[in-house]
């Protein structure tokens, strides 16, 4: 796959279709991939990588990049195309300035999950069927591939590219996933249990803003949490209220716009399952206002910018699930 992508990139650079390529650059170790922009075939040959660790969603970079001179080539995984579509719909990117090549993804690995097994000194990672072989300075280790799979890929919602100018490989389908299982599990807990669950999780938050800054839906020119006039600005959560406040507002501001790309949870240094908050909104929207997938198209009205006269009342919250 990597060869096909590299040769496509070089071809499109050479024929002048694009003048830049956004993709991934290899790092110091087997897994520390950085999104990067390549301007020449030489740069691509030297550093371009597409492998099991290229999970970073590059769509958000296109907000800036698509406003620059010339067209940029973006290699997008299926989930990334939803993000781009949503950005297109909200006029955040200049779609005409982007040449999208859809690339398949059969799930990415998460180095943190390997390390959580106590495996350290990693010098190489290799897939061997369902087994993952990990070379370390302390000898070779193995683990099932599935256990190292990134959480966001384990609950993949679609293998279909919703926007592209060209595809490498076959396009996939929207798939049914169990992505709402954990939300449902929480819904079925008692209020106290839910409260305890979230206190335990959100108290870990160090307000590094990685979840916000990586989120392709969070592209505000000036985030309310940075704006001293907004009344909610803060740099670090001084207490539990501010932890809740930040995460409620963050999730609310992307409600109906979040494509469920899973980046927020991937980047959280404290492993807080932030995607559950987003998924709660998605689940509510789906069940109360009809199935809606943000980013699936560029024309539909976002659920929170829309209404019907016979929408349910807010009191439905009192009538559902466990108190």
């Amino acid at each position, binding site marked *: 796959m990597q060869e096909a992508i590299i040769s496509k990139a070089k071809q499109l650079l050479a024929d002048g279709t694009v003048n830049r390529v956004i993709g991934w650059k290899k790092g*110091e170790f087997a897994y520390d991939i950085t999104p990067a922009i390549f301007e020449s075939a030489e740069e691509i040959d030297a550093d371009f990588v597409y492998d099991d660790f290229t999970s970073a969603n590059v769509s958000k970079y296109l907000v800036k990049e698509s406003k620059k001179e010339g067209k940029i080539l973006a290699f997008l995984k299926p989930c990334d195309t939803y993000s781009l579509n949503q950005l297109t719909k909200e006029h955040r990117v200049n779609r005409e300035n982007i040449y999208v090549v859809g690339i398949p993804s059969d799930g990415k690995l998460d180095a943190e999950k390997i390390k959580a097994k106590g495996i350290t000194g990693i010098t190489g990672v290799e897939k061997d069927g369902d087994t993952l072989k990990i070379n370390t300075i302390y000898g070779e280790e193995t683990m099932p591939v599935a256990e190292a799979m990134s959480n966001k890929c384990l609950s993949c919602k679609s293998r279909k590219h919703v926007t592209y100018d060209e595809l490498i490989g076959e396009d996939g389908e929207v798939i049914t996933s169990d992505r709402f299982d954990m939300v449902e599990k929480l819904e079925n807990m008692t209020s106290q249990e839910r409260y305890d669950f979230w206190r335990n999780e959100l108290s870990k938050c160090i307000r590094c803003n990685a979840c916000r800054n990586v989120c392709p839906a969070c592209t505000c020119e000036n985030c309310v949490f940075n704006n001293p006039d907004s009344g909610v600005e803060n740099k*670090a959560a001084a207490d539990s209220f501010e932890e809740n406040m930040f995460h409620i507002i963050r999730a609310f501001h992307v409600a109906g716009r979040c494509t469920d790309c899973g980046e927020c949870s991937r980047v959280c240094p404290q*492993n807080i399952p932030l995607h559950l908050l987003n998924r709660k909104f998605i689940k509510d929207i789906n069940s109360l206002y009809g199935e809606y997938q943000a980013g699936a198209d560029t024309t539909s009205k976002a659920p929170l910018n829309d209404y019907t006269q016979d929408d349910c009342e807010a009191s439905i919250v009192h009538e559902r699930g466990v108190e």
Partner: protein
Amino acid sequence: MLKISLENLGRLFDAVSEKQTLYIPTDREDGAAEYRKYENGMKLSRNLNTLRSAKDFFFPQTENLADFKMEGKKIEVIDIREESEDFVVFGVRACDARSFTILDKVFLSEPVDSYYKNRRDHGTIVTMACSKPAETCFCGTFGIDPTAPEGDAACWSDGESVFFKANNEKGQAFIDSVAYLLEDGDTTKLDEVNAKTKEILGKLPLANLSTEAFGGDTLMEHFRSEKWAELSESCLGCGTCTFVCPTCQCYDIKDFNTGHGIKRFRCWDSCMYSDFTKMAHGNIRNSQLERFRQRFMHKLVYFPSNNNGEFGCVGCGRCLSKCPISMNIVKVMKALEVK
């Protein structure tokens, strides 16, 4: 050397925590290690390092500085400072131990930061030697020996026992307070462990990383480097690297209106944030490039230039594993090295 068997370590913790608050690294359900206040039965983490550094105990993320009481049009300032209670932080790795040398230079030089000093005076740092460094470790680059950690007192494990040694009076007092639990022990096996660790250190992927190209006299050369644009273009501008960093010490001071008064507090700031050093007139570092450059220039150039060549990084590797897009100081150093 005084030692205690591994299975009796819990008794030592119990003894310490009876007299003062004890923090030890312990495993969370997700496998990551974090410092928690010791309670009976709590297990010491086997992880190399904690997710957040020991810095938090001396320089917490948010801290109240003063209160203002408002009644109608009257304002009264209330000094809320209190003498800290004694506490012990156990299991600090050599890299984090060194971070206090760096933080002390900032907070204990005049004007002394009384909040930080208060905690430093009352906190005892008991370090622990490493035996299984990770691929992200590069403390050696900054002359740190993970088998000989600094701190008030240090300890080593040979797999069966934990050996203790004091590095100063405070450390000695700590050891004395638990001396009745310790016994003299043979360090032959421990020496072997340390030798083996040193051997591994030489084999680490970042073993050859050097600071040669950096330091105070390289300022303008690096500042003007064209590499910053490329290096910073993927930076998301989040604060992960700064907040997991044991040496980052920037903070912001803010007022919070509680409705019945004002709480003036400080909280960590990050040079990666768009409003970092934003002042009344605006911001002097308006682009992510400038802010990104600030972080690494500070650690590799400005800090050594102001502190006799001491670098502002200890090679703990936290930012290497935690950066969402895997951009880090090692990549920066390697890129800038190349002329």
